[in-house]
């Protein structure tokens, strides 16, 4: 259920940007730590896009790394997306490991958003 309102919103945003053209592909950017499950978005998309110009469009998901900032040295560490790994475990592990500087605690600095990066539309003939 969680993804339904997000999916509705992304369809409306894409249709608005497409300005009456048929949509072929929607490029999405998902924070690895966001609670968005692409498979679930796809299920809702198939239903909610029916009879719109987005029907049949491909969804392309790009995962954004989790980033952590060190409160002592200011360094920003990225935890790149790993499909087989649970992001919450990755985050917990990174918190336990701490910053390589050895001094500072890490805090969460990025990796949660859900954006529409772009929309691919049919070329006008």
């Amino acid at each position, binding site marked *: 259920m969680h993804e339904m309102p997000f999916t509705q919103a992304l369809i409306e945003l894409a249709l608005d940007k497409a300005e009456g053209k048929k949509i072929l592909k929607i490029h999405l950017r998902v924070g690895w730590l966001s609670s968005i499950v692409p498979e679930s978005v796809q299920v809702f998309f198939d239903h909610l896009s029916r009879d719109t110009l987005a029907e049949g469009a491909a969804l392309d998901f790009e995962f954004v790394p989790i980033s952590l900032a060190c409160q002592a040295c200011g360094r920003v560490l990225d935890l790149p997306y790993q499909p087989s790994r649970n992001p919450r475990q990755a985050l917990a592990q990174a918190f336990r490991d701490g910053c390589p500087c050895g001094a500072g605690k890490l*805090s969460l600095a990025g990796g949660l958003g859900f954006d529409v990066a772009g929309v691919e539309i049919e070329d006008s003939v």
Partner: protein
Amino acid sequence: MIISVEKAVTAQNDLIAARLRERLGDEKVFCLNLIAAPGAGKTSLIEKTIAGLGGRFGILVVEGDPRTSLDGDRVTAAGARAFQINTLGGCHLDARMVQVELDRADLGAVDLLIIENIGNLLCPAAWDLGEDVRVVVSSLPEGADKPLKYPETFSLAQVLVINKIDLGPFLPVKAADIRAAALRVNPGLEVFEVSCLTGAGLDQWLTWLGDRVGQKMAELGPKDPLPRSGPSRDPLG
């Protein structure tokens, strides 16, 4: 042909929320968005807030629940005005729902607007309601792992209220554990430890909130709307 969009999926909601924020700024109404798991004590905190600040400020509460007006009735009984939203299963409030309620409200006599979101630690996080401050209420029996399990919710909030600290003697978890876990996810959090049952710690909460409401009322001129949309809705990025 590819059209660059670079917008949060929630951009339309952010736009409505920005308009709400602007209106609340013009009307000098301080607005809280309360987010918590079901049973953490959001409504109890609202009741205690009405009891503590209702004499000084006009308080309006927008109650969100999947069903029933039970919470709205509690707010009314506590002495404040309440609008009850029933989402009929919907798992969070969005800015449009709040806008509908505020469109039928006269905010002239309101200084503090409290929005109680649907009991849910996950879904409400992404939906801006135009609030000044987002408050997460987490109660002691929920344990200290929630900030890590629901990082969006804790990282987007400015305040954490740890409720039910009176249960401390009976539970292995300590309020300090919850505080530490939450600060890991969001070092900027302001944390209050309270018991809505015994009243412990509520003075600090009421003092903080009273100050913030007073500051907003004293602001001059229309407030600038906060730019919330834009490409990276990632609040941390």
